[in-house]
């Protein structure tokens, strides 16, 4: 684990720098701490920061750039002729990487010498066998250009890692020298250290931006790649979802409409369960319930929100599904074919969303000023009339926001639909039929055997993009409504 070693070495230099910097600063005033600008530890920290931060940033940057450069160089080495008709450059590169890993593990396991792995080989079967013996995965026969590329790939990565480690240690030592030279009583160590810590804090806060950026970029690039292989119009307006199972065939129908329909249908069923129950529970808890009832019932309801979704998924698959099948299935009303259906998933998702709707609405109802209620009582309205005609209209925007948030939750929910809704994509009105959703198909397309560069796998990213955009729009709208409403009474 060379990166770990590099990390430890730099850490050791930083620790040594801390001790030296501190003692040098103290020595510069002959041990009289009062004459120093900052506390002694700040001088040490200054050196440690100057050792660690530049070396760390350099390593990160190198690790980001190196694979790109290596990939580009090696990719150019593969002649057009070496790429089979039903393959692509990306697939060949994946094979190159696999072989390079295989060579590594073969050398580590003693299947071949380091020299053997480095020099061009003519007996390709022998190489394949040695890699396989060491547990490496080789999907197809190794060809000469691919093996060459793999060896080049290994060589470049090896040199790259070596140069990186050397430079990182040099940078760390340079930082130590710089910091130690500064360690004088007059040096404003505290200001420097505090500025660096502040930068660190800003960096931590920016992780949120980086995460969003990472999500958006990984979705966009792969979605563009998908649309290059599959027409966008067919994806957005296609009414048929039938990916081919081979993973390489061109005969897949990847229309998103049946999935969107399934998603919305299940969400509507879920909201039809959660909104009335959640809303009435919130009204009762905030307007009628005594303190004691409230202190018991509210946390109990919120337990429902703390249960992991896999539990609900299993509940749908093994309890609710069979129960519904008994009532609506062949032996009952005859509407249902199997336990997995829109109704099953929707009902269970509704249960999950009850506390979501109730606690958000509860907060919003509580935020309605008491003066409005008192005014209504003063005019002779009963409590329920006050709620219906004064409190709820005043809280309506907030409640709508809460419902939108719940809807976005329902649309993005995965485990319940994966286990409870079935796998067939269809455009149907019957809630007792199996349907599938965007999230369920993301899971099935990315966990199947489909090759990663095929449209069947890449479609998952386009689906993810659709999901991301829809939920983001709902969230932004909901937050806007809630915020706007809050301002009214503050």
């Amino acid at each position: 684990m060379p990166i770990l070693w590099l990390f430890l070495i730099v850490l050791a230099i930083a620790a040594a720098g801390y001790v030296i910097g501190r003692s040098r600063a103290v020595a510069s005033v002959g041990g009289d701490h009062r004459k120093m600008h900052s506390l002694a530890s700040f001088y040490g920290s200054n050196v440690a920061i100057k050792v660690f931060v530049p070396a760390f940033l350099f390593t990160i940057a190198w690790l980001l750039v190196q694979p790109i450069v290596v990939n580009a160089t090696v990719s150019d080495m593969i002649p057009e002729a070496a790429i089979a008709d039903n393959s692509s450059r990306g697939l060949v590169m994946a094979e190159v990487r696999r072989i390079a890993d295989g060579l590594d593990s073969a050398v580590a396991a003693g299947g071949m010498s380091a020299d053997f792995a480095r020099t061009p080989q003519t007996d390709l079967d022998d190489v394949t066998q040695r890699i396989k013996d060491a547990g490496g995965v080789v999907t197809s026969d190794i060809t000469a250009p691919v093996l060459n590329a793999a060896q080049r790939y290994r060589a470049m990565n090896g040199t790259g890692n070596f140069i990186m480690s050397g430079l990182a240690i040099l940078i760390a030592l340079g930082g130590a020298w710089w910091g130690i030279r500064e360690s004088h009583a007059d040096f404003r160590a505290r200001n420097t250290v505090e500025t660096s810590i502040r930068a660190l804090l800003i960096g931590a806060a920016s992780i949120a931006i980086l995460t969003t950026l990472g999500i958006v970029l990984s979705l966009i690039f792969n979605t563009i790649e998908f649309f290059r292989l599959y027409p966008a119009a067919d994806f957005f307006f296609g009414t048929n979802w039938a990916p081919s199972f081979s993973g390489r065939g061109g005969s897949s129908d990847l229309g998103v409409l049946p999935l969107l329909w399934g998603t919305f249908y299940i969400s509507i069923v879920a909201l039809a369960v959660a909104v009335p129950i959640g809303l009435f529970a919130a009204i009762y808890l905030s307007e009628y319930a005594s303190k004691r009832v409230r202190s018991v019932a509210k946390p109990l309801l919120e337990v429902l929100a703390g249960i992991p979704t896999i539990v609900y998924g299993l509940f749908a698959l093994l309890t609710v599904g069979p129960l519904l099948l008994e009532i609506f299935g062949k032996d009952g009303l005859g509407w249902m074919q199997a336990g997995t259906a829109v109704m099953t998933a929707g009902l269970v998702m509704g249960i999950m969303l009850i506390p979501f709707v109730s606690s958000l609405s509860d907060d919003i109802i509580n935020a309605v000023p008491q003066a409005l209620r008192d005014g209504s009582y003063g005019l002779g309205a009963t409590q329920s009339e006050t709620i219906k005609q004064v409190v709820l209209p005043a809280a309506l925007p907030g409640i709508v926001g809460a419902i939108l948030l719940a809807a976005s939750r329902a649309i993005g929910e995965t485990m319940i639909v994966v286990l409870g809704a079935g796998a067939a994509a269809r455009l149907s009105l019957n809630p007792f039929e199996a349907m599938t959703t965007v999230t369920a198909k993301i899971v099935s397309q990315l966990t199947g055997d489909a090759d990663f560069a095929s449209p069947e796998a890449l479609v998952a990213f386009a689906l993810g993009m659709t999901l991301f955009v829809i939920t983001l729009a709902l969230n932004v709208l909901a937050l806007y409504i809630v915020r706007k409403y809050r301002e009214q009474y503050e």
Partner: protein
Amino acid sequence: MTDTSLPQNAPRGSNSILATDARTKKRNAAEKRFRALGMGAIGIGLFFLIVLFTTIIRSGAPAFTRTVVDVQFTLTQAQYDEAEGTLFKTAAYADLFIAQLGEILAEQDVAADFDAESIERTLGKVGGTLREFYRANEDQLDQPVNFSLATSSRVDGYLKGRVTLEGIEDSRFLMASDLDLVDELQAAGVIKSEFNWPFITGADSGVDNPGGAGIGASVVGSFFMMLVVLALALPIGVAASIYLEEFAVQNRFTDLIEVNISNLAAVPSIVFGILGLAVFIQFAGLPQSAPLVGGLVLTLMTLPTIIISTRAALKAVPPSIREAALGVGASKMQTVFHHVLPLAMPGILTGTIIGLAQALGETAPLLLIGMVGFVARGYPDGFLTGFTEANSAMPAQIYTWAARADAAFYDKAWGGIIILLIFLMFMNILAVILRRRFERRW
């Protein structure tokens, strides 16, 4: 004096406040109905909660017991040498076992009829187990040894009522006649029920051995993931909150961060899985199914939760503390790190534990980074390899079991859920205790 009093027993007019008129009655009835609706809603919610928990406990309990056949078996040195000398060694052991089991049953006056195959269907590969034991413990020869042999999952299901004699179809896994044998063994009193330790400590078995599946290895996988989340999400989350709460000036950049945090909190978890797949596995080349990758993805997911609760905790520290520290000459940084942060720590820890509990139960992103479909057959070799070696996690393991066609795995899935919920319960109780014990009201 023309004082006249109102007739006492005259009928009250329709507009008297002492009589409830029809309209008031209607309004009061509406009031009662409305109230009942509210109570009903809460009742339904609590009813669902109770149904959910009774289902979990009822369906999960069988996973914690297993049935074993307890037999006393003696192997002489001569028998051992002879068995080791034959070609099919385990078969020789199985024959010896069958002979002794027959004697035991005869002593109890139970007439049983079984052969090597029916024993293998009910008790698994007995010969192999015995041979392994005696080869490792040759000093146990010539004396009686107690063996607890686990019954096969289908026999186990029969004894727990999951498999019935009527519903059974003869297959190579179980024949109806085997269940007669089981009944006879039960009559002879050699079948016992015991706590299923292998379920708690064991690793996942393959698709065809539901009886041997355990959740232990995936608990370890979850543990490593939680370590990653704790090591990354807590410092990053606290640093971000300190910046936003104590240092940030109101500008576009700060607004951008705030908007991003509130949006990330609502992004569906599966999208984080896509991010993990594209960035950590495809781009950065980290290994699939590794707790490290799972931990990284869950870190990004929990960060908003931790940031939101940490900011609330920092906000709750009164400004007088900051002013006092600044007044005696502390720098802004020293004020925050020496005074504000320690006072906010209980609140921060509470939020972190709740965030961890959320992350522990999250499944969807783990599906995408390959923690499902992988059979976690063993524990990681060491501490460091525990992060990078392929493993499963508790919710992913439960999903794997639920997705298998064999109904015997459903018991395991429910049992796994009980274990998962116990962990979650402990974390939440810890959070509540921390809050009750250390949170200060100013």
